[in-house]
């Protein structure tokens, strides 16, 4: 059997969640918006999921908007905030500030939304490890366009490619001390599995999460609204999710997400920390000319990003795949070739003479997997050199 180290792309579904979903599909159906017993049962499951997540994250249950996943949540956070500009005379959002290493769901949508609403779109620079430069953020926050203009800031909890953890508490403090009406959106799609999610929620106005990165079903996520920020809908229809996201609810998906959040919060973080430490030290001692692109202490426990000298990424991935080790390199272009990564460019390591591979862990990762991965990486690297 193969070794799967691409959980940052998607995790296999946890067995408990699979059982839950399977049993719900057997016994339950019903549109929670209808008026009969089937609907009531569905609503019970949906509200139960909402309440469960709210309890786990210490928020009001009305502050969870179920979506189709991380990308939709990110889009809704940005569009849903900025769209208020059309309804109000003052305190409009004038600037969107995003880090240069955000996921495309934030980078590309903020560019589009900025264009549509004629806003200033500014990039917050990062250091060589991909951490947002908070001084630069402060400077950008202090640039005023008018007395009551607000700024929308979007910085992820941890990076999807290199694993770097962002100083989200400090960012939140700076965003709010510049103007308490500023909005901080945190894309926690990757970070939710590895960082303290309740703490992220407590230090943000808006948080995006996605179920399948946590071992839940694909196609469901949530935008968590913590700061009382009004969110206008980008999908308009029957007015579900308190008029913020129309469309018949994915009731069973929501239940799956709730269980995924619960199991994630119960995860033994020490176990993964140790796994990663051993994996990295084995790799560095056994494979020559390999190093961590970002030091372990700055990245999440679920991800290792390697720079492999004198090897080509596509070739290394090809051989890893042949040896049944699933890893990833850069971000895949829609054509399937490996596109130059904006993240690596932002941290100044987009060197064409090296391979870059991301190995990401999840709930099913074992020490046996990682030991196997070390010897496969060693063999494949030797073959190419």
């Amino acid at each position: 059997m193969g070794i799967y180290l691409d959980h940052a792309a998607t995790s296999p579904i946890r067995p408990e969640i699979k059982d839950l979903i399977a049993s719900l599909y057997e016994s339950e159906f019903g549109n929670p918006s209808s008026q009969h017993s089937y609907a009531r049962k569905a609503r019970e499951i949906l509200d139960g999921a909402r309440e469960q997540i709210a309890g786990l994250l210490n928020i009001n249950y009305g502050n969870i908007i179920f979506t189709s996943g991380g990308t939709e949540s990110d889009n809704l956070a940005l569009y849903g905030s900025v769209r208020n500009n059309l309804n109000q005379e003052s305190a409009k959002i004038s600037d969107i500030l995003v880090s240069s290493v955000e996921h495309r769901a934030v980078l590309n949508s903020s560019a589009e939304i900025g264009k549509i609403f004629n806003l200033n779109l500014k990039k917050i620079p990062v250091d060589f490890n991909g951490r947002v430069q908070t001084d630069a953020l402060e400077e950008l926050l202090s640039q005023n366009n008018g007395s009551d203009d607000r700024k929308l800031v979007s910085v992820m909890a941890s990076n999807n490619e290199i694993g770097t953890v962002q100083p989200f508490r400090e960012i939140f403090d700076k965003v709010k001390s510049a103007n308490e009406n500023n909005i901080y959106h945190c894309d926690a799609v990757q970070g939710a599995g590895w960082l303290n999610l309740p703490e992220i929620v407590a230090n943000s106005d808006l948080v995006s999460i996605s179920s399948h990165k946590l071992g839940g079903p694909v196609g469901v996520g949530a935008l968590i609204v913590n700061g009382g920020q009004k969110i206008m809908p980008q999908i308009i229809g029957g007015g579900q999710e308190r008029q913020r996201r129309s469309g018949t609810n994915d009731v069973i998906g929501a239940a799956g997400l709730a269980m995924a959040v619960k199991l994630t919060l119960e995860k033994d973080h020490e176990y993964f920390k140790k796994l990663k430490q051993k994996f990295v030290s084995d790799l560095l001692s056994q494979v020559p000319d390999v190093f961590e692109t970002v030091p372990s202490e700055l990245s999440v426990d679920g991800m290792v990003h390697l720079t492999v000298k004198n090897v080509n990424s596509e070739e290394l991935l090809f051989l890893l795949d042949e040896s049944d080790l699933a890893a990833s390199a850069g971000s895949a272009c829609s054509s399937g070739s490996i596109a130059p990564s904006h993240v690596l460019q932002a941290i100044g390591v987009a060197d064409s003479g090296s391979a870059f591979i991301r190995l990401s862990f999840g709930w099913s990762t074992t020490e046996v997997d990682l030991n196997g991965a070390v010897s496969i990486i060693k063999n494949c690297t030797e073959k190419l050199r």
Partner: protein
Amino acid sequence: MSRSLKIAVGMSGGVDSSVTAALLKQEGYDVAGVTLKLWGGQSDSGCCSVSDVEDARFVAKKIGINHHVWGFVEEFEEKVVAPYVESHARNETPNPCVECNRHLKFDLMLQRAKRLGFDAIATGHYARIITDENKKRYLARSADTKKDQSYVLSGISKDVLEMCLFPLGDFEKSKVRQIATELDLLTANKPDSQDVCFILATGGRKEFLSKKIPLNKAQIVDDGTDEILGEIEAMELVTLGQRREIGISRYGQRQYVVNVNPKSQQVRIGPLERLLVDEIRFGDENLLIDSITDKQKIIVQVSAHGKPIKATYLKEGKILFDSSQRKVAPGQIVAFYDTDNVRVLGSATVVSH
């Protein structure tokens, strides 16, 4: 049990390479499809050539092989696009397909395939590999001479022939489409690609080059009388022997471009006889056999679909035509064939006509 040969098939997303992969798979080889991502700019097939890659992937799935995309965007720019532009800037007529085969498909792709454990690469080119009694391999024209593509392959290194397969070399094009239809491949009726892949059909060479180099006006001059007949917008786009776009007929005779003089910014035209020469000079020779002897009788071909011309090869870098021929634009590739017009002996770049 010996393992079957592992072959990487270059799949462009067209019908020829689709059938190539299918045939090799049927013959029991361990086949993987590889689509090269070469061009980073705009193309007629969309961003990243997504639709062609998708077609190749779809076909690969249909015939039951793995499919990979290998990116050589920077290398393509360096080895094919930039030299193409520079060549035009020198008023030459380059052939980017020859350079792409030489540097990308039959060098970078082949070397990568080798590193990744493949025994050979195959493409859907209409050409053949033939072997002599000593098992020595030669590049040769395809059986379907109308479709023959040995000319665009004539720049590859003889060292790589060991690792190349051209399974369509014995087929007629119509047969290839028939096979594709029988196998229900979605590329069965896809039209053949015609033009330079990195140039949009809408803007053409002119728009492409105008963004990279200055395009200069030139006078159209009668080569016999020195009379100025008009003006042409982009001298860099004019090729020797061209009639199109010059549009002048004089003395009841067709007129051809017989000379392009960048210094005096003149495009000189005249009747066919002024275009004829008895020899051409060449440089950058690439041989696909061990050697060609001085004064050896050979056949040459000077464009992708040009006719075979009888000639004599001179080691000093000259081809003497048996009978007068139209001039050949510098930058063009001249491919050498044996007198049977079957084996490719090599090729070179024309430096002067």
